[in-house]
């Protein structure tokens, strides 16, 4: 579903040009969840932004659902394949738009019929009551806001969801609810997830396969089973893993 080959991402120009991602390749199958973990500055968000089309200065090949995308130009069809859920749900939602108009916006942009009914259906899917469509972001909790941004990401029936630290701004109890919701949606709708996070507990819970990034490269790729069993090769992966063990 997502096929990334030899991806290089750059920032800046001339002598200041910074090579943030160096030759990253990975594949995510349909219905799979792939996790990218690493520290800030490791390039994991740059990979996500390049795939999402938020950053245009990259080389290599990115194929979404079989067709490659152009770094500089995205077609409407490309755009409908992919949606992002951001880390900070307050920053990602317009503070002066109601929940209803936030979710309806992608529908209007793409000229889909009957946004009203779709918004109601989407709210139900993320387990929010229909009356929430009249609320503003500051009138709902952080977990509810993250549900709103998930509902917006679902609006176009995009097969791929990019999740950029979707629960790191949430409390543990709310995080559990949102992660469960994401898993339910994935199995109901056959979604493909690419998730960026630094929380190894979340990665081990959500992702089928994991790429560990450091200094713009994937230093180790491993399966969920290997991560849980502790079959990790790189000392850095070991260090990350230990932070998610409660007893030990």
């Amino acid at each position, binding site marked *: 579903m997502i096929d990334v080959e030899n991806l290089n991402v750059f920032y800046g120009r001339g002598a200041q040009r910074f090579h943030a991602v160096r030759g990253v390749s990975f594949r995510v199958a349909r219905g799979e969840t792939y996790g990218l973990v690493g*520290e800030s500055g490791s390039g994991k968000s740059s990979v996500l932004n390049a795939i999402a089309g938020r950053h245009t200065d990259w080389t290599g090949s990115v194929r979404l659902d079989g067709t490659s995308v152009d770094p500089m130009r995205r077609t409407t069809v490309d755009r409908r394949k992919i949606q992002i859920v951001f880390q900070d749900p307050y920053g990602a939602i317009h503070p002066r738009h109601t929940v209803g108009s936030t979710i309806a916006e992608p529908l209007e942009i793409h000229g889909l019929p009957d946004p009203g009914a779709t918004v109601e259906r989407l709210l139900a899917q993320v387990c929010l009551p229909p009356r929430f469509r009249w609320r503003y972001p500051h009138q709902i909790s952080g977990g509810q806001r993250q549900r709103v941004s998930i509902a917006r990401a679902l609006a176009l029936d995009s097969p791929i969801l990019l999740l950029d630290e979707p629960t790191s701004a949430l409390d543990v109890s709310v995080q559990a609810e949102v992660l469960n919701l994401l898993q339910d949606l994935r199995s109901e709708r056959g979604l493909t997830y690419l998730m960026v996070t630094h929380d190894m*507990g979340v990665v081990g819970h959500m992702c089928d396969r994991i790429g560990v990034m450091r200094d713009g490269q994937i230093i180790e790729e491993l399966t969920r089973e290997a991560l849980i069993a502790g079959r990790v090769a790189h000392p850095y992966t070991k260090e990350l893993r230990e932070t998610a063990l409660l007893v030990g």
Partner: protein
Amino acid sequence: MNEPILSVRNLNVTFPGLGRVTHAVRGVSFDIGNEKVGLIGESGSGKSLTGRSIMRLLPKAAIPRADRLRFDGREILDLPEAEMRHLRGHRIAMILQDPKFSLNPVMCVGDQIAETCRIHLKLGRQDARLRAMELLEKVHIRDPERVYPLYPHEVSGGMGQRIMIAMMVVARPSLIIADEPTSALDVSVRAQVLRLLDELRSETATGLLFISHDLNLVRRFCDRVIIMYAGRIVETLPAARLHEAEHPYTQGLLAALPRLDRPVDRLAVLRRDPTWTEEVAP
């Protein structure tokens, strides 16, 4: 046990509003000696307000009340603001999540440390500068010459926290209130900052109140854990025995945490019981 460094009895923080009063902290009591105490709770549980009450840095609308708020044998709840200001920084220090908001944005970080040296150690300008360099080195900043003239917006989060800690090394406070000091940091940087806090504490008797929502981190780093829910303390237990928690709220939090050593298909969702907000934990 000797006289604790901090002793809090029946602390209440209320926000009077139109028609109703919001009771944010409800009858909180605890002591801190020469130890690391973790304070865990969700957003809105009152954990940060508890920390800020001790610093007397509450929002204007808040009304704190307590039977006892004793620090170093002194009642501090009614201390005049001028004396309180002397206490802050000298005797009680606070580290916040984002050092950018704790540092002066228009003064380079080295000068800020030097200023602390001039105030606390009564050093001259030149000596203070040298001392600040030493301190930067002491908090494991590799290239003090390069870091000294940087402004807070030019340093990373981990570097900023280390600079905050460098200032505390000078003042040697006997109580440190750390409110989510490492939440914004990467794993390896987090470990460095925690190690520094340990180094700082090893030199003098220091109580540490470590406010966090990260159960894993608190279990590993702290000696004792206090768990707050809806403004109350529901449970206090040794950090090493956190997994033996008895209160259903603590158990619920632990169950909701995704863990590599206990993989599950679905995470348990916390069921909130209204009685948790009524009863006071024994």
